[in-house]
């Protein structure tokens, strides 16, 4: 009995600590989300938390002093005297507070505490960022170039155009390879598989310089094909490994009966293996898709500064560099780029987690 009671008491503490941690984890994102809906001027003047009701001094009256009051002497207001410094910082008199509103005009605010919330919210930030009419981007040499109406919407489509094939191509290629590694016997099989496993954790930096040289020679730089191939190659080891783990676990009878019916390997693969692998394909597909969607380095190197194929992460990084204080643009742009990952996260959480876990740990 006693043990049970003790456990219950602990549960309350556990819930509280976990609640605090969750709150800390959530708060930066919440701040970004709220700020992205606030008018540009508000973001820069007050913290985003001011949208929640809070106590603040509200001006209820203004007192104008006559011209001949000497500000260096104690100043008399409503029968009490205050020094200039006191009025600068604000001084309490009863429930009210007195503070200079405009010292040169000799105006003093009379303020009362009250509940306020700056609830002015707007969609203008999103409109600006999506249509991008107001952009002026600074080049690396300091010159300013006007972005002509492309904005994030163009980058959004570019990202999608890059991400879909860069997900499907490696998955298709890797699945074919995984099938061969798992169920076909051929010379060089072990060596090649070992090489693929070795490539799993190789930092892709080791490939960038030579690949860029090849791409420049072939004219692949800044083309969709080039970036698909790069993403496909960099994702291949992981996807092959993941699919190998799945396909090699399929029951052997499956293949034998299909073979007896005279099906070719291609037919077995596309009619039997692919449909059976849908859960695994979904998991690793989501992983690869998000990896490409969120990628910055590969795009930075193989796309460079060609605006017509730039992806969102580059656009946002550019914004941070060139308009680092324009929080109304940054917050909404960042949130737009988060929409897709968050949608996938909340709608396909099961596959997402499995893909991420399989993405680094077997199982």
């Amino acid at each position, binding site marked *: 009995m006693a043990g049970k009671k003790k456990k219950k008491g*602990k549960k309350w503490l556990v819930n509280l600590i*976990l609640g605090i941690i*969750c709150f800390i*984890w959530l*708060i*930066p994102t919440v*701040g*970004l989300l709220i700020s992205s809906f606030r008018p540009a001027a508000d973001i*820069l003047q*007050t913290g985003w938390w001011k949208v929640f009701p809070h106590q603040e001094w509200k001006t209820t009256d203004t007192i104008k002093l006559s011209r001949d009051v000497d500000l260096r002497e104690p100043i008399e207001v409503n029968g009490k005297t205050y020094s200039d410094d006191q009025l600068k910082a604000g001084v309490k008199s009863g429930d009210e507070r007195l503070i200079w509103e405009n010292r040169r005009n000799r105006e003093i605010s009379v303020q009362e505490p009250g509940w306020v919330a700056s609830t002015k919210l707007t969609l203008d930030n999103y409109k600006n960022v999506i249509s991008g009419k107001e952009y002026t981007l600074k080049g690396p040499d300091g010159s300013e170039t006007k972005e002509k109406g492309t904005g994030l919407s163009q980058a959004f*489509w*570019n990202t999608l*155009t890059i991400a*879909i094939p860069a997900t499907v*191509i490696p998955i*298709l*290629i890797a699945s074919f390879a995984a099938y*061969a590694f798992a169920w076909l*016997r051929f010379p060089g099989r*072990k060596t*090649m*598989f070992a*090489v693929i*496993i*070795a490539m*799993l*954790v*190789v*930092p892709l*930096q*080791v*490939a*960038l*310089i030579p690949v860029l040289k090849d791409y420049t020679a072939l*004219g692949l730089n800044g*083309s*969709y*094909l080039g970036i698909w*191939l790069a993403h*496909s190659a*960099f994702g*291949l080891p992981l996807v092959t490994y993941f699919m190998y783990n799945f396909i090699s676990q399929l029951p052997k009878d499956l293949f034998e009966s299909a073979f007896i019916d005279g099906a070719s390997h*291609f037919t077995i693969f596309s009619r039997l293996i692919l449909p059976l692998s849908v859960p695994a394909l979904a998991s690793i597909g989501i992983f690869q898709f998000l990896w490409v969607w969120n*990628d910055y*380095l590969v795009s930075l190197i193989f796309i460079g500064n060609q605006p*017509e194929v730039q992806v969102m992460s580059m656009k*946002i990084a550019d914004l941070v*560099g060139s308009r680092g204080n324009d*929080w109304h643009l*940054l917050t909404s742009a*960042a*949130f737009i780029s988060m929409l897709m*990952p968050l949608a996938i*996260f909340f709608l396909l959480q099961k596959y*997402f987690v499995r893909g*991420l*876990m399989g993405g*680094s*740990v*077997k199982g």
Partner: protein
Amino acid sequence: MNTQAKKNFSLKAALLFVVVLLLNIFVHGAIFMLFRDSTLNPLLTALFAVIWGVAGVYLLYLSFSWAVEQFPEQISRRMLPYVFIGPAVLLLGWLLVLPALRTLYLSFFNASSDKFVGLGNYLAIFSDRLLATALRNNLLWVFVGTLACVALGLLIAILADRSSYERIAKSIIFMPMAISFVAAGVIWKFVYYYQPGTEQIGLLNAIVIALGGEPQAWVTMLQPWNNFFLIIILIWMQTGFAMVIFSAAIKGVPDDILEAARVDGAGEIRIFFRIIIPYISTTLLTVTTTIIVFTLKIFDVVMVMTGGQYDTEVVATQFYRQFFMYRNFGYGSTLAIVLLIAVLPVIYFNLRQIRKQGGF
């Protein structure tokens, strides 16, 4: 007669194979040229590109499989595996394996890759102040970042396991995993934002002021502590990963062992260190290596937050700087190889693990 027929058959098949090969090269080459030179509406281009990219690869396999099947059974059985793994091996060879070797080669040459300098670049990297800072910071990232991610992930996994709202708590902690480092950079830049005066719009500075402190420019002026503020972003993003995997592992600890320990009067802390930790030690090791490998390559966060200024340079950003801004291929390659050397033990470990499991 029979062998003659077979030979003819093979010849015909070989011819067909060559035709299929040429056809594929021609068709895809033509489409590529078309794309490169077209000025279509971007949406249409995107749509076509997606269709081509996806259908093209499928048709590639289809046509080659068909061509290989035209050979006599004996030959086609030997050829087919290479059709299946061919594209993967070619792609990997061209874009990852060979480049790694070429980078290694380049790392022994000077900035413009025309003079052999031996180990000169490696010596320079460890003595040059900027590069040494990058190495120092990278160590800091790996050490502090990994330790914090693993410890926090473990703590949260344990807490979540005993709490009454496990699912939602895990979702919240895991959520940052989904978003990009660039977006996370913006989120945290806003948290750390500093402006002179008492009215702060950055959360951290507002809290500091509310507690009666002085506002700080966290990621710029506060050296060398600014690195820690960048590492917090990594912790925020990666703890969820560690937590999810630990959580699954902790659930695998058999209940009867835990019960037995409790009956024997062991406290929760004792149970944690004596039973849970040893039980999940393999998972602990895997997660730690994964995060170390990930942290070694850290790039996006630093790039977005500081661009590597204010002494926050890491190896990957320094690599980018040497490679793209200074066009120093020697230093660039050497830095990449340093990263590669750092992960070599993990590669060895992975290979041994696979060999144990699958008989490779």
